């Protein structure tokens, strides 16, 4: 089930909420965890019931392994072997389902093996639930976690707001909340904040991201099909995708935070205006925050982090970003994307080191604006590789961006025929302007609602604009409009004008 589907919004969610309210009213709060667990499994199984078995198997196995590790940690006899076994098991699972085809292909190419095309259907959310559980096992080993109740553990992994696309949650962040929030039952405060976040998230996804996709998708489809992309179209397509993926993913995360809040649970923040970042380092502190945090704590630091000199540090950074890229999907384009960010981060760190004595640089507005522009350009450039299905497609867009097909020849800088771009409609620029202003200049919803701390761990940035959410009639009306605008755009009945035949 998707958050932006009718079945979810009009059937699943109301039913789950009513069950939650009834159970807490009737003083059956001990049944709330089983209820939410059952509904979360329905939520997951709706897509492909068969993979429920996989999810449950993974949950039970990790629960048992975690219990053993936690016991070792409590008794002062660390069970590193069990941890190793558990982590390897999770990696094997994700490796089998997600990366088998990819590595078989590499093996065929490099070593002449003949695995051929290996195609295993990818179980939904496997990247998220395996990572969350690996973190849990490591936390158990560190003595930070250890859950005695299998039902609670299962809910921690499968809780539907966060199951499909994060945020990736730490055990310690939510477990205690389960106790208190569920015994209190629904409250007007939680519902008001939750519904507001859901409305905003849905709007970002359905109204902004889906409309931007209309402009990004054809450009990349043309590029992947071997077409030539002109300067204007390449820029429009790249920027449209840059904004699309932000509004899509952050909208989804806002909905996840809002959905959990309906049940009184505060999830960690996942996006905090990443396109306002003035450096790549800052970008990664604002983009998919729970993944960055995971990669830092469970990959970069265990690899050695910055403890063994700058060379090892840069090597660790690169390794982390390459694997982080691969996590997004089994394909070279994701590796290239991760590698680009690795390079950007290394440059960024080297620059910080080189300029550490020039503190005025960081305060100068002009320098800040240039830094922001460079950051957003680097990020957008990397998205081209992330989005294109093929390397050739990505390069076709890159060629368009630098004007190889039309701008450079017309300036006499390179020879060759000037490629006449089919051009882009004016509308795309209007959408880019609106979405860009929202992403770069406007305060985000966590700033606007700062007083009520909608998410865990949100930065304490104030906004200079006098936009402060309060439960007033005006805010209710605005949010109501945002909600209804999103709902009526859920269905764009596919249009087809073709009467000539």
């Amino acid at each position, binding site marked *: 089930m998707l958050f932006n589907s*009718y079945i979810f919004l009009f059937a699943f969610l109301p039913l789950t909420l009513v069950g939650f309210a009834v159970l807490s009213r009737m003083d059956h709060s001990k049944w709330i965890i089983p209820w939410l667990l059952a509904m979360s499994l329905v939520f997951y199984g709706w897509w492909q019931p068969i993979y429920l078995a996989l999810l449950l198997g993974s949950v039970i196995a990790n629960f048992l392994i975690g219990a053993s590790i936690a016991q070792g940690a409590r008794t002062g006899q660390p069970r590193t072997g069990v941890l190793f076994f558990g982590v390897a098991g999770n990696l094997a699972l994700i490796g089998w389902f997600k990366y088998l085809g990819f590595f078989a292909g590499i093996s065929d190419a490099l070593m002449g093996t003949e695995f051929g095309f290996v195609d295993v259907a990818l179980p939904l959310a496997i990247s998220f639930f395996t990572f969350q559980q690996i973190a849990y096992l490591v936390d158990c080993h560190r003595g930070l976690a250890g859950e005695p109740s299998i039902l609670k553990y299962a809910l921690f992994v499968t809780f539907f707001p966060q199951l499909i696309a994060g945020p990736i949650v730490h055990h310690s962040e939510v477990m205690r909340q389960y106790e208190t929030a569920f015994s209190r039952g629904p*409250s*007007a*405060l939680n*519902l*008001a904040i939750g*519904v*507001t976040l859901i*409305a905003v998230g849905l709007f970002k996804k359905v109204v902004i991201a889906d409309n931007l996709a209309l402009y990004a998708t054809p450009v990349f489809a043309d590029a992947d099909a071997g077409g030539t992309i002109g300067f204007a179209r390449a820029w429009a397509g790249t920027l449209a995708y840059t904004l699309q993926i932000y509004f899509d993913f952050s909208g989804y995360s806002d909905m996840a935070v809002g959905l959990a809040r309906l049940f009184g649970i505060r999830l960690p923040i996942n996006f905090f205006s990443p396109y306002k970042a003035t450096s790549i380092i800052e970008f990664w502190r604002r983009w998919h925050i729970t993944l960055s945090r995971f990669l830092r704590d469970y990959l970069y630091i265990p690899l050695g982090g910055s403890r063994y000199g700058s060379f090892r540090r840069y090597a660790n950074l690169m390794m982390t970003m390459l694997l982080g890229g691969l996590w997004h999907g089994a394909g070279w384009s994701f590796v290239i994307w991760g590698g680009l960010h690795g390079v950007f981060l290394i440059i960024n760190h080297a620059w910080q080191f080189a300029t550490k004595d020039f503190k005025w640089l960081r305060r100068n507005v002009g320098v800040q604006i240039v830094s922001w522009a460079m950051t957003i350009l680097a990020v957008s450039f990397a998205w081209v590789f992330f989005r294109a299905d093929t390397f050739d497609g990505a390069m076709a867009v890159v060629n368009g961006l630098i004007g190889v097909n039309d701008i450079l020849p017309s300036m006499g800088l390179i020879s060759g025929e000037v490629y006449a771009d089919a051009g882009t409609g004016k509308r795309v620029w209007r959408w880019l302007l609106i979405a860009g202003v929202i992403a770069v200049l406007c305060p985000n919803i966590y700033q606007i609602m700062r007083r009520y701390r909608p998410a865990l761990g949100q930065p304490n940035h104030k906004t200079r604009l006098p936009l402060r959410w309060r*439960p*007033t*009639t005006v*805010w*209710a*009306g605005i*949010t*109501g*409009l945002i*909600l*209804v*605008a999103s*709902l*009526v*755009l*859920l*269905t*764009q*009945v*596919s*249009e*087809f*004008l*073709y*009467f*000539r*035949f």
Partner: protein
Amino acid sequence: MIRRSFRRYLIVLLGVAGSLYISMGIVNLLVDPFGIYDMPRIDGFNAIKVDVDKHIRLAKAVQVRNVLPKTVIVGSSRAMLGIPATDPLWSREKQPVYNLSLYGGYLYEAMRYFEHAVALGTVEHAVIVVDLWMFDRDWETRPGFSEARFVVDPDGQPQTPDDTEILKTLFSLDTFRSSLRTVGRQDRDDILIQGADGTSDWRSAEGWLRTKEGHRPQFGYMEHMFATTAWWPEPGRRWAVTDPNDPNSPLQFFRRMIRTSYEKSISSRIVISPSHARIWEVIHAGGLWFTWENWKRALVAIVDEEAERAGKPPYKVWDFSGYNAITTERVPNTQELMQWYWDGSHFKQSVGRLILARMFDATDVDVPSDFGVVLSSVSIEHELARIRDARETYLTTHKQDAEEAARWHKLNK
């Protein structure tokens, strides 16, 4: 206090969203811009469905379930614009008649809509209007086509249609815009409108053609389109329509329609549509003349084979194409209006009436004697030869037309 304000916030928020959402649904229901909620059509309010063309595949799949016709007209845009479903020529026992034709519809879509209508259980008569291009082997379903709307699945098994689409459409902004346009444009006549019977009426094209410098540019436009997309020469497009063993040939879909028709004891008539003679020149210039002839042979053979299989007399295959008083109408150089055609491909409903009159032996309509012949295994070779001869005559009598139509293919080379 604070608690109360959060409660009030929720009530206002959900109240605003809910009331707007439901009001929009009510407006959409009352206006029924795609004619899928079976609401009354009120003159001056919503009688003319100006936006139904955008969702024609949805609309017709749903409308036919409400009409429950005794007769269906199946075909492509020629049948949709040209064969009137409401006309005294349809005898009482054939009514109600519903025009299921779709623009852009290849034979597969025509077959599926036919099967859908037949599975509803009321269909006793069918007029199946075909053109060569519907049998393109590179066919694909058009955007907006969905198997989930039919009461019978592609394997012929009964299925429950997905009616959530109808509900979703009710609460869509897109529908709301169409509702507003529908109410606001009842007095406009520059549009193609679809009647409740499924036939589209281009009621204003005459005024429109006057502003577009008349019919001749329209002919050229349509011929160019056929030459560059529909009747692209082989091997760019595959027109291997005559191989009876080719499982991907749309002829197999035609066979399936005829078989279904016999199995359900439906009285069917097959019509080869009367496009203007200039279109035959486009076919000829594309090197498809023999394909066109073979296609007609195949239609007759399939009808004969299926008739024999069913133990019933073969359905009549009416050929209105070729060269006759209608198809050779003079194309004016001025903005003067033509009597029978909109453009080379689409004929007017006046021609559709002549087709009906000829097939139903109507005595009160004056049908040109050379318009429409029945093709059978006995007569077909004679009729094909007659058309070949008639073409030679046409080339001399309509030299300018023939050359103009043929030149579009030269642009391909």
